């Protein structure tokens, strides 16, 4: 039992270096990465202490096994993207150098900023997927969340932390409420959520200008505000630069909130009754029902919580980055949220990484265009290919089978 103290010490160390590492890293301090790596090594050590070296080995192996399809997919997509660039007259070496330098080094802060809303919409879509539902209209809930956050942000003047928390809760709830419509329709009439949430996304998008006009500009002289008034400064999310002066001035703590929420969603899904029921309904409705789990209730929970999470994406953009709401955002957080959720196989923790990857590809793509004038849209293709290759993971066994068949045939022919 002398192990016990060692274990506690290890946990504290892991958590401390992990959290500090993450904070520093996302605030664009690269040695944060070292701390994160240290935390991982410590965790490995902790596993050895706890369950013997074998368990740690199994854990590491299964982790690596989980990673290899994404890694192959990304590598293949990069290769294919390079071929496409070659075919269309660009130098892929120059392009990728700029892309990675821009996305992961020079403009890392933009990658992080891009990732924040994606983590939320990705979580939203992943959570709904776990319940067997496809929240394809996350973008709409994002708009609702943004509107509610802006409305409150302009008006709420309580002590800072309190009103920020209130805004998070209320605006998230508003977005959740928006998803009541598809949820109820799904439960009562079976209307497919792919169509209903999608249509409601369009609706929310078109309604936002009305809201913006009502909350911006000087109503006496004009009715054409395309942007709302700024929210109160007390309602801004804190910036990293206040604590860590070298950090980029736009980088706000939304990324930490996002990571925390991702961990929370993971906990809900795999450690609580709600998550258990949601997954049960998602994986086998009939069995869940026969064992007394209410399908309707869990559809409601899943879609509402998904709406809440997408709403938080909007809250973060408003409170952290824009401090107001624009018309015609053209944000595409809904579609990209689908990508990151699928890439992460609907695992909330995975969503963090896939979102950062996506954000970095975008940021790097812009950097690439600015410096080399190679069109950033190549990134869209690379993203599409990555997605296809990872999601269609049977593609490897499919071609593997084809190959082995041919080989067999050849051998037979030779015989």
């Amino acid at each position, binding site marked *: 039992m002398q192990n016990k103290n060692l274990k506690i010490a290890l946990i504290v160390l892991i958590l401390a270096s992990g959290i500090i590492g993450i904070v520093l890293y996302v605030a664009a301090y690269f040695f944060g990465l070292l701390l994160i790596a240290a935390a991982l090594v410590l965790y490995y050590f902790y596993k050895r202490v706890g369950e013997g070296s074998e368990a740690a080995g199994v854990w590491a192996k299964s982790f690596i096994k989980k990673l290899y399809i994404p890694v192959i997919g990304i590598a293949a997509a990069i290769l294919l993207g390079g071929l496409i660039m070659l075919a269309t007259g660009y130098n892929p070496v120059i392009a990728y150098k700029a892309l990675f330098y821009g996305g992961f080094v020079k403009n890392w802060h933009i990658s992080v900023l891009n990732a924040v809303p994606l983590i939320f919409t990705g979580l939203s879509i992943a959570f709904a997927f776990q319940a067997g539902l496809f929240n394809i209209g996350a973008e709409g809930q994002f708009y609702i969340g943004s509107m509610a956050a802006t409305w409150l942000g302009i008006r709420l003047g309580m002590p800072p932390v309190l009103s920020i928390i209130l805004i998070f809760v209320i605006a998230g709830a508003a977005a959740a409420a928006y998803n009541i419509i598809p949820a109820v329709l799904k439960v009562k009439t079976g209307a497919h959520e792919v169509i209903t949430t999608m249509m409601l996304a369009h609706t929310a998008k078109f309604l936002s200008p009305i809201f913006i006009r009502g909350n911006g500009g000087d109503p006496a002289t004009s009715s054409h505000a395309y942007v709302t008034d700024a929210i109160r400064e007390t309602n801004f999310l804190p910036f990293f630069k206040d604590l860590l002066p070298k950090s980029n001035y736009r980088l706000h703590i939304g990324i930490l909130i996002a990571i925390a929420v991702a961990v929370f969603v993971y906990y809900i899904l795999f*450690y*609580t*009754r*709600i998550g*258990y*029921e949601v*997954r*049960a309904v998602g*994986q*086998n409705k*009939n*069995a*869940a*029902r*026969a*064992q*007394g*789990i*209410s399908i309707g209730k869990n559809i409601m929970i899943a879609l509402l919580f998904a709406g809440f999470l997408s709403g938080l994406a909007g809250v973060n953009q408003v409170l952290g980055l824009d401090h107001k709401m624009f018309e015609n955002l053209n944000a595409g957080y809904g579609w990209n949220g689908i990508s990151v959720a699928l890439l992460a196989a609907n695992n909330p923790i995975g969503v963090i990484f896939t979102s950062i990857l996506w954000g970095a590809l975008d940021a790097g793509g812009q950097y690439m265009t600015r410096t080399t004038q190679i069109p950033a849209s190549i990134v869209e293709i690379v993203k599409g290919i990555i997605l296809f290759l990872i999601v269609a993971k049977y593609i490897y066994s499919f071609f593997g089978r084809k190959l082995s068949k041919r080989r067999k045939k050849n051998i037979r022919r030779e015989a």
Partner: protein
Amino acid sequence: MSAIPGGNVVLEMRNIVKQFPKVLANNNINIKLYEGEILSLLGENGAGKSTLMNVLYGLYKPTSGEILLDGKEVVFSSPKDAISKGLGMVHQHFMLVGNLTVTENIILGSEPGRGGLIDYKTAREEVRKLSKKYKLQVDPDEIIDNLGVGLQQRVEILKALYRKANVLILDEPTAVLTPQEVDELFEVIKTLVATGVSVIIITHKLEEVKELSDRTYILRRGEVSGECNTADVTKAELANLMVGRDVVLTVVKTGKNSDKPPVLKIRNLNVKDDKNLLAVKNLNLDIKPGEIVGIAGVDGNGQTELAEAIRSLRKVESGVIEFKGENITHLKTKELIERKMAYVPADRHRFGLILSMTVAENSVLGYHDKVPAINSAHGFKMNLGRIATASEALVRQFDIRTPGVQVPAGNLSGGNQQKVILARELSREPEFLLVTQPTRGLDVGAIEYIHSQILKIRDKGVAILLLSLELEEIFALSDRIEVMFEGKLVQEFLPEETDEKEVGLYMTGGKGGVSDAE
């Protein structure tokens, strides 16, 4: 109907091996079919009978081995090739497209007409001619979904005949038929044979083998364990070959009916089916503690709806269900579970388990919101550690063969999956057990184990309602048999005072409350 040894061999399968990813379904099988004979393939569930025939029919590709037709080797790369060589197959599960007409189903894939168009007139004519010729009456324009199983089977046979099959494979054709329909089918088979068709029939019913076939192959665990002229062997010998040991064909029940007052009372129950028609009509039933009531009936006579109504998975139109004096008609499934009412559903994959979840997670399904699965009575956080320990105990107690409790339930074999369900339901000390088709698709060993477990809790005083399509099972377990026909309980029997023939007669409406007199 005598065997024709030394006649022409129309078909031969040599050294057939079929390996599925995890199962060696056929291991080096050799069979021969002579012209004009009825050959039966006998074997317990999972022995590899269907697989073998699907290989023959070109649906599966054999891992190795060859098929000879009239002495020449043939390779079937799809059923199309097999059909063109004169093979016809009626599958274990009907291969009929429900929303198409009889004619469309029969001609599907070999439609008359030119240039991609279907000549419906000719098609209908041909179907009429065929059904007249073989005395298989069906309405060519009826939609399949509107037909009963007996008629659907006729369509299946017509489908094969339309394709001019001279070798007809019938995979468990009698499983869903009433005894009377079985007799009719056998007549049809005999007329077919008289016109020169050779027939392979799969079954695991010994009487049918004896009654119909000339020769028999017995399959066991993917291998041929015996081959004989049917006339030369007894049923007991066949059974022995089938399972590889002497089988006790009836389980011995001990104890007697309890005389306590009933715990479950059903009064004037009416339930509708998916088509919004009354499927359960004015049903009354009592079950006492320590009693097993078996409901016998042909599939589709309202058993599913009854079970679902009791489990509160289906709306009750009218009537009352009472449990221990409490009206539970409109309670939720969850509340039934809280009242210690357990349920073993018929279709374990669809209703019993969540295949992608682990054995441990499955072992608390339905009880996941009760201590000790969660930390407290109104708990939120699941107690994963305790769930794992408890399910490990169940695995040991119920002899569930699994590599561990943290593997997906889908990785287990059918029998072991069923054991997971049984373990989950029985370990909760239920006071009532609704059990439907508990042994479907399982082998004899597993069946025996499950039957003994059901009897064990009966002896502990649990009231049990058993719904099964297997009359044998009903007879083996029930203290009291109720026959269900067209949504009603038409007759009650004590198992020792009746036999399968008599019950079968009631099941098919041959006797009892057929007319809707009221």
